[in-house]
């Protein structure tokens, strides 16, 4: 080590020009990655970091945006204490968690066995079905939400029409006739139905995404393990429970994490389905919708920012709990 250093030093003394060139090359080699990263870093700081920092700053201020920057006034933790005393904050949080559990859980509970089934059925069928289930995920949320609004329509919606047609079929009618007494279901005007209506839309839209993740997961399961299980006499159900499912653990961890974060930020679907109002008795109001309303309709940016930071803390806490529950196994480490 010392030898190479000293010889290098002699060489540099002998040829100062080469030293200069080398150090220039060394510097530029060191700087090059930063140069390539600059566009991203600039955009990241302007559109992400600044937004974070500014909203944190705002959450300690009272500010009506239309009055200009000069009207900002420091209020300490007032926006936070005000949020925690606000009934609709808790109501929207409850709705968000309800929707997250109803649509999120069902997405995974359906996607996992269905992925296993589709893999078992062979590649041709699997490719077709996966594409069909994935299609809703890539459609425009606004467009499909508007279509669902029409489908949920009490008198002219296809969902109610289908229910009526179904329960009045000859045999089914014998034991399902009582349903007619509840028709038409007012999906969007009934406090108890609005959340299921939103959850159904969410389920339809996202189940295909999780299906793709789980199919990829099952496909990474080595043939040998599967064949060994068959040789040991494990049936289809046992292979699912004891071979495929444990193998899917990191994939489930990933999928559930995305669902938690996505659900807690749910905005577009309930916003369009309830026409921006939150529905009867605010029963379809999610926390993201509420803070949008506070910021852009009631022009109270400080309060909205405080709520968004409370939401951030909640998301962080729930994700941390999930990490804790799944542990390292969730990440595929042993």
């Amino acid at each position, binding site marked *: 080590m010392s030898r190479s250093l000293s010889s290098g030093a002699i060489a540099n003394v002998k040829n100062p020009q080469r030293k200069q060139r080398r150090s220039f090359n060394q510097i530029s080699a060191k700087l090059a990655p930063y140069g390539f990263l600059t566009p991203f870093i600039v955009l990241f700081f302007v559109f992400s970091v600044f937004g974070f920092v500014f909203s944190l700053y705002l959450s300690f201020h009272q500010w009506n*945006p239309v009055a200009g920057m000069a009207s900002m006034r420091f209020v300490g933790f007032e926006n936070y204490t005000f949020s925690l005393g606000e009934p609709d904050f808790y109501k929207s949080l409850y709705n968000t968690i309800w929707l997250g559990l109803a649509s999120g859980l069902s997405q995974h509970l359906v996607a996992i066995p269905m992925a296993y089934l589709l893999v078992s059925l062979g590649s041709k069928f699997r490719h077709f079905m996966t594409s069909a289930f994935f299609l809703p995920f890539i459609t425009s949320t606004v467009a499909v939400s508007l279509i669902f609004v029409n489908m949920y329509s*009490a008198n002219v919606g296809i969902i109610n029409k289908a229910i009526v047609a179904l329960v009045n079929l000859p045999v089914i009618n014998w034991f399902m006739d009582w349903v007619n007494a509840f028709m038409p279901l007012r999906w969007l*005007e009934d406090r108890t139905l609005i959340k299921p209506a939103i959850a159904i839309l969410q389920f339809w839209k996202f189940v295909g995404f999780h299906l793709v993740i789980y199919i990829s997961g099952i496909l990474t399961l080595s043939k040998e393990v599967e064949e060994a299980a068959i040789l040991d006499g494990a049936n289809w159900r046992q292979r699912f429970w004891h071979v495929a499912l444990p193998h899917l653990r990191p994939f489930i961890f990933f999928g559930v994490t995305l669902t938690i974060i996505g659900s807690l930020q749910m905005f577009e679907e309930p916003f369009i389905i309830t026409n921006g109002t939150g529905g009867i008795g605010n029963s379809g109001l999610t926390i993201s919708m509420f803070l949008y309303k506070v910021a852009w309709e009631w022009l*109270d940016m400080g309060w909205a920012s405080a709520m968004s930071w409370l939401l951030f803390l909640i998301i962080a806490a729930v994700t941390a709990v999930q990490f804790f529950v799944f542990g390292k196994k969730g990440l595929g480490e042993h």
Partner: protein
Amino acid sequence: MELKKLSLALLLVGTTAAAQAATTIRYDCWPNHDKTAVDKIDEFYAANPDIKVEVLSNNWVDHHNKLTTALATGDGAGDLVCIDVEKIGAIVNQGGFTDLTSAFGADKDADKFVDFAFAQGKGTDGNVYALPLNIGPGVMYYRREHMQDLGFKPEEVTKDWDALIDWGVELKKKGVPLVGHAGSIAQTIINTEVEEGNSIYFDADDKPIVTSERFVKAFTYAQKARELGLDGRFGDWSSEWFEGLKQGSFAIQFSGAWLAGFLESWIAPDTAGKWGVEGLPAGFYGSWGGTFLAIPAQSENKEAAYKLAQWLTQDRDIVLYEFDTNAAFPALRATFDAPMFDEEMAFLGGQQARLLWKDIAENIPSVKPSKADNIARAIILEQALPSVVEEGKDVKVALAEAEKLIVRRMRNL
């Protein structure tokens, strides 16, 4: 030859100088109120050769969000902006717009506009901040097959709210709902029967008045209409509402003059002749919607922007063009003697509806917008009213709770 070159050079210099002298202003609005400024701009240029106008159009929601952001950052707003009457209260009193009274003596134009509309553009300091571009005189649209054809008279069923409910009961016997949603009855009473000196939701000192007699009456009639089964239980702009307007499956709709234009042009063009209009029940007057023009305080071309605002709101031909092409009812009195006001409107069964709207526009009482209107509106119309109509909540309890929430949420205003 040299002389020719010199004169050409001089001409070029002159043209360049003129181009440099022209002030370019931006006009921000939403479709279709941006259309007149595009279609007729040459007429404005003829009178104002030193001003160039760029039009920036966004949809209604984006336009207002963009305006809010621009006012917040102090940069990026147009020199002249459209603003919906629904949004005006929250912005006008926060200093985002130019005081047109102090800057241009806009008060002197008060008589040119119908009183209520001019008052809506004023701040709490009494100065003018926005000029009315169009208004929506409120009427009751009704289907003739459920009115005259059944032997009812519009003036009798609108004598008072009880008469209207009685007619609804008769219609129900024939299986026809009176109205799309019972809540629209409450909304009409709340918006049109405002006591003198008050704004819709607040008194002169900005204290909420939502537990007052007007609100109790409004909520009670809406609840009664629902209990009697007089509504179709669907809101405005829902698919059933559109279908209902096309098929005539409900009898009446309270709305502004603009709805006739919407019905005729795209909602239900096949229903020509099947509609009629009548003044609102109990002889009250009110307005549904309206568009205003304001100059953001950050604009550096306020004079040019004000010239454009004056042209758009006070040039008789331009305002009539907007009325003709967009069904945007004018607030400008000078237009009221135009021949089109006397025309019988075939779509409305030959009624001279524009005369009725004109009469209503002149009689709508002046109600100033309040700075917390948007908060109160959301709580009353989106939460308290549905809880009473859909869930049968006690009216007084719902209103008392609403008042508490309004007071709480307007803490910073």
